[in-house]
């Protein structure tokens, strides 16, 4: 009995723990658990890996089409989308002219070529001012364009541009009424192949082609292409009673650029006073005409300068040409003195536009219209002859099927243009909401114009108004703004 216990162990043998066999298993578990990077401290794990947790943005690419022409497209040309949000458009959203009766319309179609549906769309005509041609010597006296002009045509000098005039409706007139001095020189570059002549530059008592009764100090081209220069002469009563004019014999309607200069002066020869009209072409003296001063002094009346037009025949002149000039004009300039032949040669020798401007300044030009403007400059002053801004005289609506952006009628089409909604009120109204386009659902936007009840057919007619338009469609920070800077409406 003493030698063994009930378990069979000998006396003195150590009692072994029942957990001893588990030690190797525990060590194995530790090895396995740590082998996984220490993430798991247990032999039992369950994992689910989500491999598709994604979030991606869409795209918003707005396009405008008028007729068959794409005006602008925000779709990037390459693979990457720039941060740019504004996209300039070619062409116009407005019709080209306001008809004398009825309405004119223009329609653009806005398409969303991206994947995002915009949450808002706005339309704005940001201003409605007459288009001007700058006067680099007297900035407050620009010319306002009317009728059929084309901007920024090729010019005669390096760095210069010109104004195209159509020979039937186009002219530009200054806005400051002032009397012309007794001694004066007027210069202009011209290019044409016309056989109907026309006034290159002239002075008159009206700012526009209507209501002018006095024409003076003109350079013109005869139907044969010859250049003439003439001044009106006033009698002792101040009434224009005579003319002093001179015409060359060479034809210049050869499609090349030429420079004409007319010089008006009063001279004394052997103690006798004369009014002298001298003509230069391409820097060379052509001819001059003297008339006794006692029979008529250079006319003096308040008026405006024009290019491309003068109603000479209607005002008693025999110029052998039509009133309107068909061709291109550049660098019209006035000098408050009689330029010398050397002065004229210097002007003609200007190698560039900047040299021309410098020479004009040296010769103290009182006005200088380069005429190469791009049609984006506007005049905010009072238009001569008009009692109100011309933009108040044109009625307008902008809308589409079932909505009207201006006047703003969210759920109905636009009414006929009326006097209460004009280009002036539209420009003042700022952005107007309209239903945005969506992918696969383009929106057509129609602009309709008509003469308003206050339209002034004498002084407003054929003025050009610049109507910059901005259309924005956006969804939060994803935005496309389309801009039309060249909306040029003849009213």
């Amino acid at each position, binding site marked *: 009995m003493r030698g063994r216990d009930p378990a069979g162990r000998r006396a003195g043998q150590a009692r072994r723990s029942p957990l001893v066999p588990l030690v190797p298993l525990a060590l194995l578990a530790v090895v396995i658990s740590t082998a996984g990077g220490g*993430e*798991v*401290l*247990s*032999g*039992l*794990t*369950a*994992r*689910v*890996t*989500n*491999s*598709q*947790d*994604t*979030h*991606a*943005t*869409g*795209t*918003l690419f707005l396009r405008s089409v008028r007729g068959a022409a794409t005006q602008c497209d925000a*779709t*990037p040309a*390459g*693979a*990457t*989308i*720039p*941060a*740019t*949000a504004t996209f300039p458009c070619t062409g116009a959203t407005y019709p080209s002219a306001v008809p004398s009766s009825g309405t004119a319309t223009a329609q653009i179609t806005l398409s969303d070529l*991206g*994947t*995002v549906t915009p949450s808002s769309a706005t339309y704005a005509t940001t201003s409605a001012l007459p288009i001007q041609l700058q006067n680099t010597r007297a900035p407050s006296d620009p010319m306002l364009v009317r009728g059929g002009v084309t901007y920024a045509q090729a010019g005669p000098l390096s760095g210069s541009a010109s104004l195209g005039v159509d020979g039937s409706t186009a002219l530009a007139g200054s806005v400051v009424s002032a009397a012309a001095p007794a001694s004066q020189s007027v210069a202009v570059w011209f290019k044409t192949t016309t056989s109907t002549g026309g006034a290159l530059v002239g002075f008159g008592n009206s700012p526009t082609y209507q209501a002018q009764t006095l024409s003076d100090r003109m350079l013109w081209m005869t139907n044969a292409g010859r250049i003439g220069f003439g001044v009106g002469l006033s009698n002792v009563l101040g009434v224009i009673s005579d003319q002093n004019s001179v015409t060359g014999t060479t034809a210049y309607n050869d499609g090349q650029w030429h420079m004409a200069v007319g010089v008006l002066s009063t001279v004394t020869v052997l103690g006798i006073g004369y009014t002298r009209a001298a003509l230069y072409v391409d820097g060379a003296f052509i001819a001059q005409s003297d008339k006794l001063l006692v029979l008529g002094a250079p006319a003096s009346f308040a008026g405006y300068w024009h290019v491309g037009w003068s109603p000479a025949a209607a005002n008693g002149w025999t110029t052998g040409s039509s009133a309107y000039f068909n061709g291109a004009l550049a660098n019209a300039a006035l000098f408050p003195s009689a330029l010398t032949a050397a002065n004229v040669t210097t002007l003609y020798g200007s190698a560039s536009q900047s040299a021309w401007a410098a020479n004009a300044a040296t010769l103290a030009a009182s006005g200088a219209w380069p005429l190469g403007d791009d049609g984006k400059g506007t005049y905010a002053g009072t238009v001569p002859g008009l009692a109100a801004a011309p933009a108040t005289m044109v009625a307008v609506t902008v809308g589409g099927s079932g909505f009207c952006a201006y006047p703003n009628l969210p759920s109905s089409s636009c009414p006929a243009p009326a006097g209460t909604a004009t280009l002036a009120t539209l420009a003042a109204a700022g952005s107007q909401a309209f239903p945005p386009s969506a992918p696969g659902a383009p929106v057509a936007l129609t602009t309709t114009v008509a003469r308003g009840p206050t339209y002034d057919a004498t002084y407003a007619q054929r003025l050009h108004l610049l109507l910059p338009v901005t259309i924005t469609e956006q*969804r*939060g*920070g*994803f*935005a*496309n703004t389309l801009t039309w800077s060249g909306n040029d409406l003849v009213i």
Partner: protein
Amino acid sequence: MDGNRPRRLTPAIVLAGLAASLLLALATLGTLSGFTASINNDTNSVASGTLLMQEGDGVSTCLSTTGTGAVIGTNAGTCSSINKFGGSTTAVPGAQSSKTITISNVGTTTAGTFTLTPSACTQSANGATYGTASDFCSKVFVTIQQVGATACVFPADAAAACPASPTSAGTLTSLASAGALSLGAVNAGANRQYVFTVKLDAAVGNSYQGLAASQPLLWQFAS
């Protein structure tokens, strides 16, 4: 006389002993017994529990098991059918979306630890044209809220629930750098619901168009 009696008894005792031995032997053979009792242990076995994870969003279900049929494989499943960030392909600035998912312990063993480990967020193009921005992941705001809990899982806030609208305090970029998020224990048969809310920064512009962010997430139980 005394000396002879023991000698006469000896054969009898031997015979009696032999008889008794024979009886005992017969008795053990059961052939001569009338009453018996026995216990037969026929179910002596040891079985392990299971730790299984299931993820669901009401439409799709994913399991951790990867074995064929009822076999538990590596118990590390991949789920590509439940997109925690909504999977939008046309997200816009300021747009917000939420996704609610349920993680269930469908095994028989309690998960002593439960973690969510985000991987790095990667940016890619969403289509043939794409924005030039390179920090898209940092412009996607995200919150992770356990349904019914007062704390916000991400961005971590033990004292308050996640904001209703995600902010720059929690982005896909910062989620990746947060490491493993400890989500506590999950008993066998229990489940947890989590709401993932993502929002594209309202201030982003056109250079963020056409971009995609992707970030794998790892859910893990350990017993």
